[in-house]
């Protein structure tokens, strides 16, 4: 069975996702930046707090899991 070698993978990627030619933003982004700066800061969603709490509990009860978590970061 034929296998992809590194060079074939590189060429296939370039064909599937061609290098990007010089592109520019379609519009001035400063007005969007100003709106972002003027917007009130969003609060942290409750789900994020829940995930953080569960993660902290998991790490406290199973310290060995830290290595697994760090691997996937």
């Amino acid at each position, binding site marked *: 069975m034929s296998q992809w070698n590194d060079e074939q993978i590189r060429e296939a990627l370039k*064909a*599937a996702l*061609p290098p990007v030619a010089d592109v520019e933003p379609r519009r001035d*982004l400063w007005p969007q930046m100003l709106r972002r700066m003027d917007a009130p800061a969003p609060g942290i969603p409750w789900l994020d707090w829940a995930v953080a709490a569960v993660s902290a509990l998991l790490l406290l009860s199973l310290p060995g899991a830290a290595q697994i978590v760090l691997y996937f970061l």
Partner: protein
Amino acid sequence: MELLERFAQGDQEAFEALFRQFQGQVFRWIVRIVRDPAAAEDLTVETFWRIYRAHARFRPDGSFGAWARRIATNAAIDHLNRRRMEQPLPDNLPQETQADSAVQRETREKIARAFRQLPAKYQSPAMLALVEEEPYSEIAAALGISEGAVKTRVFRAVRLLRKNLELLGVKP
């Protein structure tokens, strides 16, 4: 006072001047990673928002461009992580040629899909190194890791991509 010093002290006019000077450069870097101009525009704003909030941590004797590129890379990786869960490929960058057969097009779509399934931390260095042919030193600076770590990530990306292609039944 120099522009960078004024920015570091929170001067909004200095920030606007830097935004206008660097927005194109930041946009082009992001679009090379995420390959979606519309998303890259939003991510450029997100990048400068992070820059704006972090102004006090910027050292005026350093390179603003390199600092901005590193923040932009992190914003792009966050986006890739979200997109990996959510949606298929944008198709507004690669232009299909008329000579493409349906089989070639399907193969390219499968390859692109297999690539998008890679973890974002592998996609970004692989895209920059293999497709955009950026030097490892520049990729390392943008990711805030060593050149050796970039090479390792690219190696792992290729290995995972090979596995994904085999699972999808795509042969060379």
